[in-house]
């Protein structure tokens, strides 16, 4: 901690002058960058519409209430579809992600130079692209429907489950797997008796956690045509049926709260 001598005795400072200058320059650069970005971003903004927003909000708000609760009976089937998209998608994603995770983990990968980078690229590619974008692509390839939604959820889940699972595999205790290997076990037996008991709690915890996230995501996948509640949302928005929109949002909210509760219970029981 630097001390400078002044007329009134030594003065204490937190930082050296050089560090203070660097800190100040860093903050200045951040503010300048933000202002610059703000100017580029708002270059084409029509401020008249922005000024108008409170009135628009009040207008939409008055149209949204009261919600049309009788619409709920038409939502039960889409709700079942949404649950199926999330559950089947999670299962498919986990089934694909498990081998990828074993390829990506440093201690189980067959080759550090070939298999590991490929597996890591699969994980990053799947994680960077939101399930809505996957759904957009798959709807244009496979046609609208549940199948596109399920595959989109699965593709997005691979990265998430794969990343967390391979970290869990890397954290396993090597002495246990060595003990299994010392009995002359084959590679498959080492996986089943050495690694699996150590990663099973993490595996189920990650799967349930991802299922919870997938319920949220599958509720809106229908916006691009992949079935479920989102499809009804899109239909209601297109005809500006705001009371129905409110009902759908309430159903989505209830589903999300329910899935979060289930996932918290299950994870609490496992870990």
């Amino acid at each position, binding site marked *: 901690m630097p001390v400078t001598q002044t007329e009134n005795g030594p003065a204490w400072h937190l930082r050296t002058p050089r560090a203070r200058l660097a800190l100040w320059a860093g903050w200045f650069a951040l503010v300048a960058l933000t202002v610059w970005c703000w100017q580029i971003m708002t270059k084409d903004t*029509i401020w008249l519409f922005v000024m108008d927003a409170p009135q628009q909000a009040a207008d939409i708000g008055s149209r949204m209430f009261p919600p049309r609760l009788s619409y709920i009976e038409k939502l039960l089937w889409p709700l079942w579809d949404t649950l199926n998209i999330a559950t089947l998608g999670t299962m498919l994603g986990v089934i694909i992600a498990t081998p990828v995770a074993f390829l990506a983990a440093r201690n189980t990968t067959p080759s550090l130079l070939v298999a590991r980078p490929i597996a890591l690229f699969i994980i990053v590619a799947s994680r960077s692209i939101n399930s809505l974008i996957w759904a957009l692509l798959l709807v244009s390839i496979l046609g609208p429907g549940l199948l596109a939604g399920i595959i989109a959820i699965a593709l997005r889940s691979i990265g998430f489950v794969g990343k967390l699972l391979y970290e869990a595999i890397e954290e396993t205790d090597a002495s246990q797997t060595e003990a299994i290997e010392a009995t002359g076990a084959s590679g498959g037996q080492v996986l089943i008796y050495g690694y699996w008991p150590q990663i099973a709690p993490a595996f189920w915890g990650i799967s349930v956690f991802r299922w919870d996230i997938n319920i949220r995501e599958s509720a809106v996948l229908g916006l691009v045509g992949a079935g479920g509640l989102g499809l009804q949302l899109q239909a209601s928005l297109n005809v500006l049926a705001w009371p129905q929109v409110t009902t759908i949002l309430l159903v989505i909210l209830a589903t999300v709260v329910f899935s979060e509760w289930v996932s918290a219970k299950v994870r609490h029981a496992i870990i």
Partner: protein
Amino acid sequence: MSATAKTYPRRWRRPATMIPDPRWRYGIYAAILIYLVLAISTVDVNWARVWDGLDRGGRFVMGFLTPDFTSRWKDISNGMVESLTMTVTATVAGVLISVPIGIGAARNIAPMPVYYACRGLIALSRSLQEIIIAILLVAMFGFGPFAGFLTLTFATIGFLAKLLAEDIEDIDETQAEAIRATGASWWQLVNYAVQPQVMPRLIGLTLYRFDINFRESAVIGIVGAGGIGATLNTAIDRYEYDSAGAILLIIIAVVMFAEYSSSYIRKWVQ
């Protein structure tokens, strides 16, 4: 020996890892099986359409392997500029707003009414998906990146304020006690006891949220909130899979870059 001697099983059977009671275990297996049969039977797939689509799927894979950056470069670069500027401004604005809310939502330093108000705001922001907020905000503020900026800011508040509040609740109380013992005011307490303890994690979370905001900015464009998502949507609607592949590769590259540099910065900060 006689026949009364207990015969031990000759083969070892591995014990169940998760559910010891076999009745529960087989019951759960049966329930899962019934659910799967029901669920899969309600997924009706138009196989003829899927068969037609495989050809397009092949073209998409080819487009991904031979991306076309040039023919739509103007749209792509416009979309990227919108996405990146939206991400930067929304992250900064979100952090500025979520710091006071995060402090207000920490049980150990905020009074109870403020605590409940801030927690309520966080729950509201976390319970709605970005895309739904974007739909509502586009309806209010009109198309374009400004609505996207507001969406990302709102979503950032729920994420950052919650994690910041939890971090403040986990601080080492002895340090706060020491500062309090000097007769420090509440502001001094926050500045000298709380802020040094949570700063490294706040910086880490900000960088992580920057990464998430960029990924989300690619999505909210689908509903008209500006950014690369709009460009991507157009490319896919026109079946221009080579341009779409190029956009996806750029998104992956930016996310990888952000992830790599943020882990580097976090190491340097901590």
